[in-house]
Protein backbone atom coordinates (compact mmCIF):
# COMPACT_ATOMS: atom_id res chain seq x y z
CA UNK A 1 0.00 0.00 0.00
CA UNK A 2 1.27 3.44 -0.87
CA UNK A 3 0.49 5.22 2.37
CA UNK A 4 2.59 8.15 1.22
CA UNK A 5 -0.32 9.06 -1.07
CA UNK A 6 -2.47 9.66 2.02
CA UNK A 7 0.33 11.62 3.64
CA UNK A 8 0.67 13.81 0.53
CA UNK A 9 -3.10 14.40 0.33
CA UNK A 10 -3.15 15.54 3.98
CA UNK A 11 -0.22 17.89 3.40
CA UNK A 12 -1.94 19.27 0.28
CA UNK A 13 -5.20 19.57 2.28
CA UNK A 14 -7.13 17.48 -0.21
CA UNK A 15 -9.97 16.37 2.04
CA UNK A 16 -11.92 14.49 -0.63
CA UNK A 17 -8.84 12.63 -1.84
CA UNK A 18 -7.90 11.56 1.70
CA UNK A 19 -11.38 10.14 2.18
CA UNK A 20 -11.25 8.26 -1.12
CA UNK A 21 -7.77 6.86 -0.47
CA UNK A 22 -8.61 5.68 3.05
CA UNK A 23 -11.78 3.95 1.78
CA UNK A 24 -9.86 2.38 -1.08
CA UNK A 25 -7.06 1.12 1.20
CA UNK A 26 -9.54 -0.29 3.73
CA UNK A 27 -11.36 -2.08 0.90
CA UNK A 28 -8.04 -3.57 -0.18
CA UNK A 29 -7.53 -4.94 3.32
CA UNK A 30 -5.17 -2.38 4.85
CA UNK A 31 -5.02 -2.31 8.64
CA UNK A 32 -6.54 0.88 10.10
CA UNK A 33 -3.55 1.41 12.39
CA UNK A 34 -1.22 1.25 9.37
CA UNK A 35 -3.30 3.88 7.56
CA UNK A 36 -3.08 6.04 10.66
CA UNK A 37 0.57 5.51 11.47
CA UNK A 38 1.99 5.44 7.94
CA UNK A 39 -0.36 7.85 6.17
CA UNK A 40 -2.39 10.24 8.29
CA UNK A 41 0.05 10.83 11.16
CA UNK A 42 3.09 11.41 8.92
CA UNK A 43 0.90 13.83 6.96
CA UNK A 44 0.08 15.92 10.03
CA UNK A 45 3.69 15.67 11.22
CA UNK A 46 4.79 17.19 7.94
CA UNK A 47 2.14 19.88 8.33
CA UNK A 48 3.52 20.57 11.82
CA UNK A 49 7.03 20.81 10.40
CA UNK A 50 5.92 23.21 7.68
CA UNK A 51 4.09 25.29 10.30
CA UNK A 52 7.19 25.39 12.50
CA UNK A 53 9.42 26.61 9.66
CA UNK A 54 6.77 29.14 8.60
CA UNK A 55 5.90 27.63 5.26
CA UNK A 56 2.40 26.89 6.51
CA UNK A 57 0.28 29.28 8.56
CA UNK A 58 -3.05 28.95 10.35
CA UNK A 59 -5.30 28.71 7.25
CA UNK A 60 -3.14 25.94 5.75
CA UNK A 61 -3.10 24.02 9.03
CA UNK A 62 -6.88 24.35 9.39
CA UNK A 63 -7.45 22.88 5.94
CA UNK A 64 -4.89 20.10 6.46
CA UNK A 65 -6.59 19.27 9.79
CA UNK A 66 -9.88 18.87 7.96
CA UNK A 67 -8.22 16.50 5.51
CA UNK A 68 -6.68 14.54 8.40
CA UNK A 69 -10.02 14.21 10.17
CA UNK A 70 -11.77 13.19 6.95
CA UNK A 71 -9.59 10.08 6.98
CA UNK A 72 -9.34 9.68 10.73
CA UNK A 73 -13.11 9.61 11.24
CA UNK A 74 -13.33 6.68 8.82
CA UNK A 75 -10.81 4.56 10.69
CA UNK A 76 -11.54 5.72 14.24
CA UNK A 77 -14.29 3.13 14.92
CA UNK A 78 -12.04 0.41 13.54
CA UNK A 79 -9.13 1.55 15.72
CA UNK A 80 -11.30 1.22 18.83
CA UNK A 81 -12.16 -2.33 17.80
CA UNK A 82 -8.50 -3.25 17.34
CA UNK A 83 -7.61 -1.52 20.62
CA UNK A 84 -4.68 0.49 19.35
CA UNK A 85 -2.61 1.76 22.23
CA UNK A 86 -2.57 5.54 22.69
CA UNK A 87 0.26 7.47 24.29
CA UNK A 88 -1.92 9.11 26.92
CA UNK A 89 -5.16 10.93 27.49
CA UNK A 90 -5.49 14.72 27.32
CA UNK A 91 -8.42 16.91 28.25
CA UNK A 92 -8.30 20.15 26.30
CA UNK A 93 -10.43 23.30 26.22
CA UNK A 94 -10.61 27.06 25.95
CA UNK A 95 -11.23 28.70 29.31
CA UNK A 96 -14.44 30.38 30.42
CA UNK A 97 -15.37 33.63 28.67
CA UNK A 98 -13.16 32.93 25.67
CA UNK A 99 -14.53 31.71 22.37
CA UNK A 100 -11.31 31.83 20.35
CA UNK A 101 -10.65 28.19 19.61
CA UNK A 102 -8.57 28.08 16.45
CA UNK A 103 -5.32 27.61 18.38
CA UNK A 104 -6.90 24.97 20.58
CA UNK A 105 -8.21 23.11 17.53
CA UNK A 106 -4.77 23.08 15.93
CA UNK A 107 -3.13 21.83 19.11
CA UNK A 108 -5.85 19.17 19.36
CA UNK A 109 -5.27 17.80 15.88
CA UNK A 110 -1.49 17.77 16.33
CA UNK A 111 -1.78 15.90 19.63
CA UNK A 112 -4.36 13.50 18.26
CA UNK A 113 -2.29 12.83 15.18
CA UNK A 114 0.72 12.20 17.43
CA UNK A 115 -1.08 9.33 19.11
CA UNK A 116 -2.75 10.91 22.12
CA UNK A 117 -6.38 10.38 23.04
CA UNK A 118 -8.14 13.71 23.21
CA UNK A 119 -11.20 14.79 25.14
CA UNK A 120 -12.15 18.16 23.66
CA UNK A 121 -14.35 20.25 25.93
CA UNK A 122 -14.64 23.00 23.33
CA UNK A 123 -14.60 26.73 24.01
CA UNK A 124 -15.88 28.98 26.79
CA UNK A 125 -15.63 26.04 29.19
CA UNK A 126 -16.75 26.69 32.79
CA UNK A 127 -14.01 25.99 35.35
CA UNK A 128 -16.15 23.34 37.04
CA UNK A 129 -16.49 21.46 33.76
CA UNK A 130 -12.70 21.11 33.53
CA UNK A 131 -12.67 19.69 37.06
CA UNK A 132 -15.56 17.30 36.35
CA UNK A 133 -13.83 16.09 33.24
CA UNK A 134 -10.56 15.48 35.10
CA UNK A 135 -12.46 13.40 37.66
CA UNK A 136 -14.41 11.42 35.06
CA UNK A 137 -11.85 11.01 32.28
CA UNK A 138 -8.73 10.66 34.43
CA UNK A 139 -6.43 12.24 31.84
CA UNK A 140 -2.67 12.54 32.27
CA UNK A 141 -2.70 16.09 30.93
CA UNK A 142 -5.04 19.06 31.14
CA UNK A 143 -4.43 21.57 28.33
CA UNK A 144 -5.85 25.07 28.77
CA UNK A 145 -6.06 27.71 26.07
CA UNK A 146 -6.86 31.42 26.22
CA UNK A 147 -6.54 34.24 23.71
CA UNK A 148 -7.51 37.16 25.88
CA UNK A 149 -5.91 38.96 28.77
CA UNK A 150 -9.32 39.05 30.42
CA UNK A 151 -9.73 35.26 30.33
CA UNK A 152 -6.18 34.01 30.92
CA UNK A 153 -6.76 34.57 34.65
CA UNK A 154 -9.14 31.57 34.64
CA UNK A 155 -6.12 29.28 34.18
CA UNK A 156 -4.85 30.09 37.65
CA UNK A 157 -8.33 29.57 39.10
CA UNK A 158 -8.54 26.11 37.50
CA UNK A 159 -5.15 25.10 38.91
CA UNK A 160 -6.25 26.28 42.36
CA UNK A 161 -9.44 24.24 42.00
CA UNK A 162 -7.36 21.16 41.11
CA UNK A 163 -5.42 21.63 44.34
CA UNK A 164 -8.61 22.18 46.31
CA UNK A 165 -10.10 18.95 44.97
CA UNK A 166 -6.80 17.13 45.58
CA UNK A 167 -6.45 16.32 41.89
CA UNK A 168 -3.32 18.31 41.12
CA UNK A 169 -0.60 15.73 41.81
CA UNK A 170 -2.05 13.23 39.36
CA UNK A 171 -2.19 15.53 36.37
CA UNK A 172 0.07 17.75 34.32
CA UNK A 173 -1.36 21.14 33.38
CA UNK A 174 -0.15 22.90 30.26
CA UNK A 175 -1.20 26.29 28.95
CA UNK A 176 -1.09 28.13 25.64
CA UNK A 177 -2.47 31.15 23.81
CA UNK A 178 -1.39 34.60 22.73
CA UNK A 179 -1.36 36.43 26.07
CA UNK A 180 0.45 33.73 28.11
CA UNK A 181 4.08 32.64 28.22
CA UNK A 182 6.47 30.47 30.25
CA UNK A 183 6.77 33.17 32.89
CA UNK A 184 3.02 33.18 33.37
CA UNK A 185 2.96 29.38 33.46
CA UNK A 186 5.55 29.45 36.24
CA UNK A 187 3.63 32.10 38.13
CA UNK A 188 0.35 30.20 38.19
CA UNK A 189 2.00 26.83 38.82
CA UNK A 190 1.34 25.17 35.46
CA UNK A 191 3.66 22.36 34.40
CA UNK A 192 4.42 23.84 31.04
CA UNK A 193 3.75 26.34 28.31
CA UNK A 194 3.98 25.83 24.57
CA UNK A 195 4.20 28.58 22.00
CA UNK A 196 2.57 26.59 19.21
CA UNK A 197 1.07 23.22 18.33
CA UNK A 198 4.33 21.45 17.55
CA UNK A 199 5.74 22.78 20.79
CA UNK A 200 2.68 21.43 22.61
CA UNK A 201 3.30 17.92 21.26
CA UNK A 202 6.95 18.01 22.35
CA UNK A 203 5.97 19.39 25.75
CA UNK A 204 3.40 16.66 26.40
CA UNK A 205 5.78 13.93 25.24
CA UNK A 206 8.45 15.31 27.57
CA UNK A 207 6.08 15.63 30.53
CA UNK A 208 4.74 12.10 30.07
CA UNK A 209 8.09 10.61 29.13
CA UNK A 210 6.83 9.11 25.88
CA UNK A 211 8.66 8.94 22.57
CA UNK A 212 7.70 10.88 19.48
Amino acid at each position, binding site marked *: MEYSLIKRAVVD*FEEKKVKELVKEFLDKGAFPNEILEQGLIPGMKEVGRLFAI*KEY*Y*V*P*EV*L*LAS*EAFYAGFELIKPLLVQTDVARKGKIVIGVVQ*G*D*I*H*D*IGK*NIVKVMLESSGFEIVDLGK*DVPNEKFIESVIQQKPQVLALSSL*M*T*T*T*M*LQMETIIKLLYKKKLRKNIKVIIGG*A*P*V*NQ*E*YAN*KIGADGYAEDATGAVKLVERLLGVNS
Partner: protein
Amino acid sequence: MNWIEEVIQRKRRFAVFPMVCADHCAYLLNINFAKVATSGEKLAEVLEYGYRLYKYDMVLVFSDPYIEAEAMGCKIEFAPYPRLVSCTKDFQSRIRKKSGLETTPAKVLRGSDKRPKHNRIKEILKAVRILKRNIEAPIFVSIKGPFSLACFIGGMERFLKLLLEDNMQAQNVVESALDFQLQYLDMLLDLDVNIMIGDPMVSTSVISPALFKEFAFEPLKVLITKIRKSHLIAGIHICGEVRQIINELDNLHADILSIEDITLKTKTLKMGGVSTNTILNGSVKDIRNEIENTLSQDHLILSTSCDVPVKTPSNNIKRMIKIAREIFDN
Protein backbone atom coordinates in the same frame (compact mmCIF):
# COMPACT_ATOMS: atom_id res chain seq x y z
CA MET B 1 1.56 70.74 19.19
CA ASN B 2 1.19 67.88 21.68
CA TRP B 3 3.89 65.40 22.71
CA ILE B 4 2.63 62.65 20.43
CA GLU B 5 2.79 64.96 17.41
CA GLU B 6 6.23 66.16 18.49
CA VAL B 7 7.54 62.59 18.64
CA ILE B 8 5.99 61.77 15.26
CA GLN B 9 7.75 64.80 13.81
CA ARG B 10 10.98 63.77 15.59
CA LYS B 11 11.04 67.02 17.58
CA ARG B 12 10.83 65.15 20.84
CA ARG B 13 12.37 61.82 21.79
CA PHE B 14 9.54 60.06 23.52
CA ALA B 15 6.00 60.04 24.80
CA VAL B 16 4.38 57.44 27.00
CA PHE B 17 1.10 55.60 26.85
CA PRO B 18 0.69 52.21 28.53
CA MET B 19 -2.17 50.87 26.46
CA VAL B 20 -4.79 51.45 29.12
CA CYS B 21 -8.28 50.73 27.83
CA ALA B 22 -11.76 51.05 29.25
CA ASP B 23 -11.87 47.59 30.87
CA HIS B 24 -8.95 48.33 33.21
CA CYS B 25 -10.37 51.76 34.12
CA ALA B 26 -13.81 50.27 34.80
CA TYR B 27 -12.16 47.64 37.01
CA LEU B 28 -10.40 50.34 39.04
CA LEU B 29 -13.69 52.19 39.48
CA ASN B 30 -15.57 48.97 40.22
CA ILE B 31 -18.06 49.69 37.44
CA ASN B 32 -19.71 46.80 35.62
CA PHE B 33 -17.95 46.69 32.27
CA ALA B 34 -21.12 45.87 30.36
CA LYS B 35 -22.38 49.36 31.29
CA VAL B 36 -19.18 50.95 30.05
CA ALA B 37 -19.23 49.01 26.78
CA THR B 38 -22.78 50.13 26.00
CA SER B 39 -22.76 53.78 27.13
CA GLY B 40 -20.79 56.62 25.58
CA GLU B 41 -21.02 58.64 28.79
CA LYS B 42 -19.69 55.79 30.93
CA LEU B 43 -16.98 55.00 28.42
CA ALA B 44 -15.80 58.62 28.45
CA GLU B 45 -16.02 58.72 32.25
CA VAL B 46 -13.75 55.72 32.83
CA LEU B 47 -11.26 56.75 30.14
CA GLU B 48 -11.02 60.25 31.61
CA TYR B 49 -10.47 58.67 35.04
CA GLY B 50 -7.57 56.59 33.68
CA TYR B 51 -6.04 59.61 31.99
CA ARG B 52 -6.23 61.76 35.13
CA LEU B 53 -4.92 58.94 37.33
CA TYR B 54 -1.92 57.97 35.24
CA LYS B 55 -1.22 61.21 33.33
CA TYR B 56 -0.07 59.57 30.11
CA ASP B 57 0.31 61.39 26.81
CA MET B 58 -2.69 60.20 24.78
CA VAL B 59 -6.05 58.53 25.27
CA LEU B 60 -7.33 55.52 23.35
CA VAL B 61 -11.07 55.13 22.97
CA PHE B 62 -11.36 51.36 23.08
CA SER B 63 -13.89 49.27 24.91
CA ASP B 64 -13.66 46.00 22.95
CA PRO B 65 -12.83 44.87 19.42
CA TYR B 66 -16.42 44.09 18.37
CA ILE B 67 -18.03 47.52 17.84
CA GLU B 68 -18.07 47.29 14.04
CA ALA B 69 -18.63 43.53 13.92
CA GLU B 70 -21.74 43.94 16.04
CA ALA B 71 -22.99 46.76 13.83
CA MET B 72 -22.55 44.43 10.86
CA GLY B 73 -24.71 41.76 12.44
CA CYS B 74 -22.49 39.72 14.78
CA LYS B 75 -23.96 38.74 18.12
CA ILE B 76 -22.10 40.02 21.16
CA GLU B 77 -22.55 39.21 24.83
CA PHE B 78 -21.48 41.82 27.34
CA ALA B 79 -21.03 40.16 30.71
CA PRO B 80 -18.56 40.04 32.27
CA TYR B 81 -16.61 41.30 29.24
CA PRO B 82 -17.78 41.71 25.64
CA ARG B 83 -17.28 38.60 23.55
CA LEU B 84 -18.24 37.54 20.09
CA VAL B 85 -20.90 34.86 20.30
CA SER B 86 -21.62 34.35 16.62
CA CYS B 87 -20.60 35.79 13.30
CA THR B 88 -22.89 37.61 10.90
CA LYS B 89 -25.78 35.26 10.14
CA ASP B 90 -26.30 36.11 6.52
CA PHE B 91 -22.60 35.93 5.72
CA GLN B 92 -22.85 32.75 3.72
CA SER B 93 -25.89 33.63 1.64
CA ARG B 94 -24.54 37.08 0.85
CA ILE B 95 -21.11 35.94 -0.20
CA ARG B 96 -22.69 33.35 -2.45
CA LYS B 97 -24.49 36.16 -4.22
CA LYS B 98 -21.24 38.13 -4.17
CA SER B 99 -23.21 41.11 -2.94
CA GLY B 100 -21.31 41.60 0.27
CA LEU B 101 -22.79 42.76 3.52
CA GLU B 102 -24.84 45.82 2.92
CA THR B 103 -25.00 47.22 6.42
CA THR B 104 -23.48 50.68 6.70
CA PRO B 105 -22.72 52.81 9.77
CA ALA B 106 -25.20 55.36 8.47
CA LYS B 107 -27.95 52.73 8.37
CA VAL B 108 -27.03 51.64 11.87
CA LEU B 109 -27.15 55.21 13.17
CA ARG B 110 -30.44 55.98 11.42
CA GLY B 111 -31.86 52.86 12.96
CA SER B 112 -32.91 51.53 9.57
CA ASP B 113 -30.85 48.43 10.16
CA LYS B 114 -32.53 46.38 12.82
CA ARG B 115 -29.79 43.86 13.40
CA PRO B 116 -27.63 45.49 16.07
CA LYS B 117 -29.21 45.29 19.47
CA HIS B 118 -26.80 47.86 20.83
CA ASN B 119 -26.09 50.79 18.59
CA ARG B 120 -22.62 51.21 19.92
CA ILE B 121 -21.17 53.24 17.09
CA LYS B 122 -23.35 56.09 18.34
CA GLU B 123 -21.91 55.53 21.83
CA ILE B 124 -18.33 55.66 20.59
CA LEU B 125 -19.04 58.95 18.83
CA LYS B 126 -20.63 60.27 22.01
CA ALA B 127 -17.61 59.26 24.09
CA VAL B 128 -15.27 61.01 21.65
CA ARG B 129 -17.24 64.25 21.85
CA ILE B 130 -17.17 64.21 25.66
CA LEU B 131 -13.47 63.37 25.85
CA LYS B 132 -12.58 66.06 23.34
CA ARG B 133 -14.31 68.62 25.55
CA ASN B 134 -12.68 67.41 28.78
CA ILE B 135 -9.20 66.23 27.88
CA GLU B 136 -6.24 68.15 26.56
CA ALA B 137 -4.21 65.13 25.35
CA PRO B 138 -4.65 63.77 21.80
CA ILE B 139 -7.48 61.30 21.48
CA PHE B 140 -7.30 58.19 19.34
CA VAL B 141 -10.20 55.93 18.46
CA SER B 142 -9.50 52.26 17.91
CA ILE B 143 -11.09 50.81 14.78
CA LYS B 144 -10.61 47.35 13.31
CA GLY B 145 -8.54 46.69 10.25
CA PRO B 146 -10.74 45.37 7.41
CA PHE B 147 -9.07 41.96 7.41
CA SER B 148 -9.65 41.38 11.14
CA LEU B 149 -13.19 42.70 10.82
CA ALA B 150 -13.73 40.23 7.97
CA CYS B 151 -12.57 37.45 10.31
CA PHE B 152 -15.18 38.49 12.88
CA ILE B 153 -18.11 38.84 10.48
CA GLY B 154 -17.23 35.71 8.54
CA GLY B 155 -16.41 33.54 11.54
CA MET B 156 -12.70 33.24 12.15
CA GLU B 157 -12.05 29.63 11.21
CA ARG B 158 -14.43 29.69 8.27
CA PHE B 159 -13.00 32.92 6.89
CA LEU B 160 -9.38 31.80 7.25
CA LYS B 161 -10.16 28.64 5.29
CA LEU B 162 -12.01 30.66 2.67
CA LEU B 163 -8.80 32.60 1.96
CA LEU B 164 -7.33 29.47 0.38
CA GLU B 165 -10.53 27.87 -0.86
CA ASP B 166 -12.24 30.75 -2.62
CA ASN B 167 -10.23 33.85 -3.26
CA MET B 168 -13.15 35.85 -4.72
CA GLN B 169 -15.51 35.21 -1.84
CA ALA B 170 -12.83 36.06 0.70
CA GLN B 171 -12.09 39.31 -1.16
CA ASN B 172 -15.79 40.04 -1.14
CA VAL B 173 -15.98 39.82 2.65
CA VAL B 174 -12.88 42.00 3.09
CA GLU B 175 -14.35 44.58 0.69
CA SER B 176 -17.60 44.64 2.68
CA ALA B 177 -15.58 45.25 5.83
CA LEU B 178 -13.57 48.00 4.12
CA ASP B 179 -16.70 49.73 2.78
CA PHE B 180 -18.15 49.76 6.28
CA GLN B 181 -14.93 51.07 7.82
CA LEU B 182 -14.58 53.86 5.28
CA GLN B 183 -17.98 55.20 6.25
CA TYR B 184 -17.32 54.77 9.96
CA LEU B 185 -14.03 56.57 9.43
CA ASP B 186 -15.84 59.52 7.84
CA MET B 187 -17.89 59.92 10.99
CA LEU B 188 -14.81 59.77 13.21
CA LEU B 189 -12.72 62.11 11.07
CA ASP B 190 -15.57 64.64 11.17
CA LEU B 191 -14.94 64.73 14.92
CA ASP B 192 -11.29 65.56 14.29
CA VAL B 193 -10.01 62.53 16.14
CA ASN B 194 -6.91 60.40 15.55
CA ILE B 195 -7.22 56.76 14.60
CA MET B 196 -5.48 53.60 15.77
CA ILE B 197 -6.27 50.67 13.48
CA GLY B 198 -6.12 47.37 15.34
CA ASP B 199 -5.53 44.46 12.98
CA PRO B 200 -4.53 41.46 15.11
CA MET B 201 -5.38 38.82 12.52
CA VAL B 202 -2.89 40.04 9.91
CA SER B 203 0.23 39.06 11.82
CA THR B 204 2.26 36.16 10.50
CA SER B 205 1.34 34.32 13.68
CA VAL B 206 -1.91 33.78 11.74
CA ILE B 207 -1.52 34.28 8.00
CA SER B 208 1.35 34.07 5.54
CA PRO B 209 3.07 37.16 4.17
CA ALA B 210 1.54 36.27 0.79
CA LEU B 211 -2.00 36.33 2.20
CA PHE B 212 -1.19 39.58 4.02
CA LYS B 213 -0.17 41.15 0.71
CA GLU B 214 -3.19 39.76 -1.12
CA PHE B 215 -5.93 40.52 1.39
CA ALA B 216 -4.78 42.91 4.10
CA PHE B 217 -2.26 45.40 2.75
CA GLU B 218 -4.41 47.36 0.34
CA PRO B 219 -7.43 47.86 2.63
CA LEU B 220 -5.09 49.13 5.36
CA LYS B 221 -3.44 51.47 2.88
CA VAL B 222 -6.82 52.87 1.85
CA LEU B 223 -7.75 53.65 5.46
CA ILE B 224 -4.38 55.17 6.31
CA THR B 225 -4.36 57.36 3.22
CA LYS B 226 -7.81 58.66 4.11
CA ILE B 227 -6.80 59.46 7.71
CA ARG B 228 -3.63 61.23 6.66
CA LYS B 229 -5.47 63.27 4.05
CA SER B 230 -7.52 64.64 6.94
CA HIS B 231 -4.27 65.70 8.66
CA LEU B 232 -4.99 63.42 11.57
CA ILE B 233 -2.70 60.79 13.06
CA ALA B 234 -2.93 57.24 11.70
CA GLY B 235 -1.60 54.41 13.83
CA ILE B 236 -1.63 50.66 13.33
CA HIS B 237 -1.57 48.15 16.15
CA ILE B 238 -0.75 44.52 15.42
CA CYS B 239 -0.11 41.86 18.04
CA GLY B 240 1.88 38.80 17.05
CA GLU B 241 4.76 38.19 14.64
CA VAL B 242 5.40 40.88 12.03
CA ARG B 243 9.06 40.38 11.11
CA GLN B 244 8.22 38.91 7.70
CA ILE B 245 5.88 41.77 6.78
CA ILE B 246 7.68 44.65 8.42
CA ASN B 247 8.66 46.28 5.12
CA GLU B 248 5.06 46.19 3.92
CA LEU B 249 3.88 47.67 7.22
CA ASP B 250 6.47 50.39 6.87
CA ASN B 251 5.26 51.07 3.33
CA LEU B 252 1.76 51.75 4.59
CA HIS B 253 3.16 55.13 5.68
CA ALA B 254 1.21 55.27 8.90
CA ASP B 255 2.39 57.71 11.55
CA ILE B 256 2.67 55.10 14.30
CA LEU B 257 3.35 51.38 14.23
CA SER B 258 2.46 49.61 17.47
CA ILE B 259 4.13 46.18 17.46
CA GLU B 260 5.51 43.66 19.93
CA ASP B 261 9.08 43.66 18.67
CA ILE B 262 10.26 47.24 18.54
CA THR B 263 13.82 46.21 17.64
CA LEU B 264 12.65 45.74 14.04
CA LYS B 265 13.97 48.53 11.84
CA THR B 266 11.34 50.86 10.42
CA LYS B 267 11.05 54.38 9.12
CA THR B 268 7.65 54.62 10.81
CA LEU B 269 7.64 55.72 14.45
CA LYS B 270 7.21 52.70 16.71
CA MET B 271 5.05 52.28 19.76
CA GLY B 272 5.63 49.58 22.36
CA GLY B 273 8.55 48.36 24.46
CA VAL B 274 7.01 46.83 27.59
CA SER B 275 5.40 43.41 27.38
CA THR B 276 1.88 42.95 28.69
CA ASN B 277 3.10 40.18 30.97
CA THR B 278 5.67 42.46 32.53
CA ILE B 279 3.12 45.17 33.22
CA LEU B 280 0.79 42.55 34.71
CA ASN B 281 3.23 40.44 36.71
CA GLY B 282 6.64 42.10 36.56
CA SER B 283 8.62 43.74 39.34
CA VAL B 284 9.83 47.34 39.29
CA LYS B 285 13.20 45.98 38.14
CA ASP B 286 11.58 44.09 35.24
CA ILE B 287 9.73 47.19 34.13
CA ARG B 288 12.86 49.34 34.40
CA ASN B 289 14.90 46.78 32.42
CA GLU B 290 12.41 46.71 29.58
CA ILE B 291 12.24 50.50 29.44
CA GLU B 292 16.05 50.75 29.45
CA ASN B 293 16.15 48.27 26.57
CA THR B 294 14.20 50.78 24.47
CA LEU B 295 16.88 53.43 24.83
CA SER B 296 18.42 52.40 21.53
CA GLN B 297 15.35 53.84 19.79
CA ASP B 298 15.88 57.40 18.62
CA HIS B 299 12.19 58.16 18.95
CA LEU B 300 9.45 56.11 20.54
CA ILE B 301 6.00 56.12 22.02
CA LEU B 302 6.76 53.94 24.99
CA SER B 303 3.80 51.63 25.44
CA THR B 304 2.78 48.12 26.31
CA SER B 305 2.87 45.62 23.46
CA CYS B 306 -0.89 45.11 23.71
CA ASP B 307 -3.69 46.46 25.86
CA VAL B 308 -3.03 46.49 29.58
CA PRO B 309 -4.69 43.44 31.17
CA VAL B 310 -7.77 44.29 33.20
CA LYS B 311 -6.41 43.45 36.62
CA THR B 312 -2.96 44.96 36.14
CA PRO B 313 -1.77 46.46 39.42
CA SER B 314 -2.28 50.19 39.21
CA ASN B 315 1.16 50.73 40.78
CA ASN B 316 2.87 48.94 37.90
CA ILE B 317 1.35 51.37 35.43
CA LYS B 318 2.31 54.35 37.58
CA ARG B 319 5.84 52.97 37.92
CA MET B 320 6.15 52.45 34.17
CA ILE B 321 5.27 56.09 33.53
CA LYS B 322 7.45 57.41 36.34
CA ILE B 323 10.50 55.38 35.31
CA ALA B 324 10.00 56.33 31.66
CA ARG B 325 9.86 60.03 32.43
CA GLU B 326 12.94 59.77 34.69
CA ILE B 327 14.97 57.92 32.08
CA PHE B 328 13.94 59.82 28.98
CA ASP B 329 13.89 63.27 30.54
CA ASN B 330 17.52 62.93 31.64
